[in-house]
């Protein structure tokens, strides 16, 4: 039975993956150059714009997690919840026990991932709207938990004055200088680094056997079971990966903004993460990144309409759904390939 999947995957991957691979490799190299060389050189003197880009980078990092759950065919509205969990883990460890941010960051991701696996195991048995409903409730539940956390989460007053990331010393040498809240540049590099790492990881994953397994879950779980795929294991895996990204993203924002409140991530944020993925295009790895950068930057540039941001998000979502159901990237691919992009 296992042989059947192994035979099928490389064959399909070879056929569709050839052009896809080079497209994505090219795009990724360009992306890295732009992010690590182009942006600092161009905007290095504009701290405000760097802050905006940092926001967009980490938001797209978190949305990338949502993209993974989309690839197993689940609509995840709990990403805000796990970002909140990650944020609180970092905030509590850093303020109460003085643990370095560099330890907290992966640890927050890990806590979120474990929690995600525990909650996800029963919850992922649900499908479609049922899963969406439960995850939506979960976002609200975690917010209430933070609000009622007593001394641990400090309730509605939140945790403030979280120290910025400190120095890293390796063999007596200073590898990473201490961060200060006045200079956004180190944060930017950290955010860009996280995004690049996340992107490579998800890209490798979606081209590996695991990626094909995930997509097979989206198309038909029963069929996947019948050819010997342990459906429960893989979907929990995908979900906790997604939660890991939410947790680290949430931890980053705590260090970046130096505070966290129960209302830092609400249902609206969970919905926004979905919107980023959707606007860029669910079938493309770069979808969440294109979506997040486009929306975050355009809203920062258009100050006048910021009061109506959420309203425009809603209208945009409906408009996209009706006119561009496969996302912005589907436009480009269609023009270059001269054919409609494949569904899967």
């Amino acid at each position: 039975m296992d042989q059947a999947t192994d035979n099928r995957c490389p064959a399909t991957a070879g056929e569709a993956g050839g052009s896809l691979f080079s497209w994505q490799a090219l795009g990724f190299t360009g992306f890295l150059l732009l992010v690590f060389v182009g942006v600092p050189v161009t905007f290095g003197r504009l701290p405000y714009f760097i802050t905006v880009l940092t926001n967009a980078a980490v938001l797209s990092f978190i949305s990338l997690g949502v993209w993974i759950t989309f690839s197993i065919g689940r609509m995840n509205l709990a990403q805000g919840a796990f970002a909140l969990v990650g944020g609180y883990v970092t905030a509590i460890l850093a303020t109460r026990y003085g643990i370095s941010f560099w330890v907290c960051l992966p640890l927050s991701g890990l806590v979120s991932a474990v929690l995600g696996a525990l909650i996800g195991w029963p919850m992922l048995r649900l499908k479609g709207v049922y899963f969406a409903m439960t995850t939506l409730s979960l976002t609200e539940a975690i917010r209430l938990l933070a609000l009622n956390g007593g001394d641990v989460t400090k309730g509605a007053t939140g945790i403030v004055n979280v120290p910025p990331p400190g120095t890293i010393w390796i063999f007596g040498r200073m590898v990473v200088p201490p961060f200060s809240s006045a200079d956004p540049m180190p944060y930017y590099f950290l955010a860009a680094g996280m995004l690049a790492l996340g992107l490579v990881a998800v890209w490798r994953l979606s081209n590996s056997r695991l990626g094909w397994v995930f997509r097979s879950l989206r198309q038909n779980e029963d069929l996947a079971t019948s050819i010997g795929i342990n459906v429960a294991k893989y979907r929990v895996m995908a979900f906790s990966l997604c939660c890991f990204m939410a947790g680290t993203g949430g931890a980053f924002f705590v260090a970046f903004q130096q505070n966290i409140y129960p209302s830092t991530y609400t249902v609206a944020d969970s919905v926004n993460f979905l919107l980023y993925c959707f606007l860029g295009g669910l079938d493309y790895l770069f979808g969440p990144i294109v979506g997040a950068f486009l929306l975050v930057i355009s809203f920062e540039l258009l100050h006048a309409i910021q009061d109506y941001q959420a309203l425009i998000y809603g209208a945009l979502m409906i408009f996209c759904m009706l006119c561009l159901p496969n996302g912005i990237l589907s436009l480009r691919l269609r023009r270059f390939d001269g054919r409609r992009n494949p569904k899967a």
Partner: protein
Amino acid sequence: MLLNGVVLAVNYALIALGITLIFSIMNILNFAHGQMFMIGGFVVYYLYGLFGVNYFASLVAVVAVLGVIGWCFEKFFFQRMRKMATREENSMLLAVGTALLLENLALSFFGEKQRGVPPVVSGVFKIGDAFLPAGRLLVMVLALVLIVGLLLFVQYTKLGRALRALAQDREVTYLMGVNVDRIAALGFALGAALAGLAGGLLMTVFGINSGVGTVYSIKAFIMIMIGGAGIVPGAILGAVVLGFAEAIGYALLPGSITYLLIFVGLIVFLLFRPQGLMGKPWG
């Protein structure tokens, strides 16, 4: 406490019935249901609270306003979507988008303030040891009448039969010569009107603000998950469970811990019975 539970349960049943109606007919989860509830409340606030229109006349206006909104949603958004959707997530995302849109429209137009209206009827009834304000009794009776009316309508009229047929099998309903698009739009309008009516009724007890939409959407989801999605008796059962749980919880526990416990309970419950109390097993 228990009387409060009854009042809540009956009104929640209205909400749950509305969302069940839409869900069973179109297989769309109406994420904007709580927002429709909120708009219903605001219509009552403006007509009855500010302009002094008769309360029952404002309830009729609620039905009209929400009916039009629901009809437009189905006609312009979801019908189009069904014809061109490539992934099943699309209609869900569209529903989320409509919720976002309605909530923020309300924020822009109605502001963030908590709004309340003067009581419709005054006086208090004493039942045993408990006191029941007449306003709450009125809300309860009206909701009960509406529920019974809806059930009779769906069971015995021609339109109701068409709605039930649509919920069972779309293609066969076409074959029977039913104008499916029109009936679906009607069903959506009816569901939206029910949400609005619940808003208009509960408004007199709790007041309303632009932010309550999400809260009530979540309550509606909880109810249909307890009872089993798309099943009418399940929706009522879910409403009863949630109404009493909430009333008892608020009386005994501080603040928002009640909902935390309800969420935890829900997730544990779904672990054992993912299809709800009355739902058929699926997936």
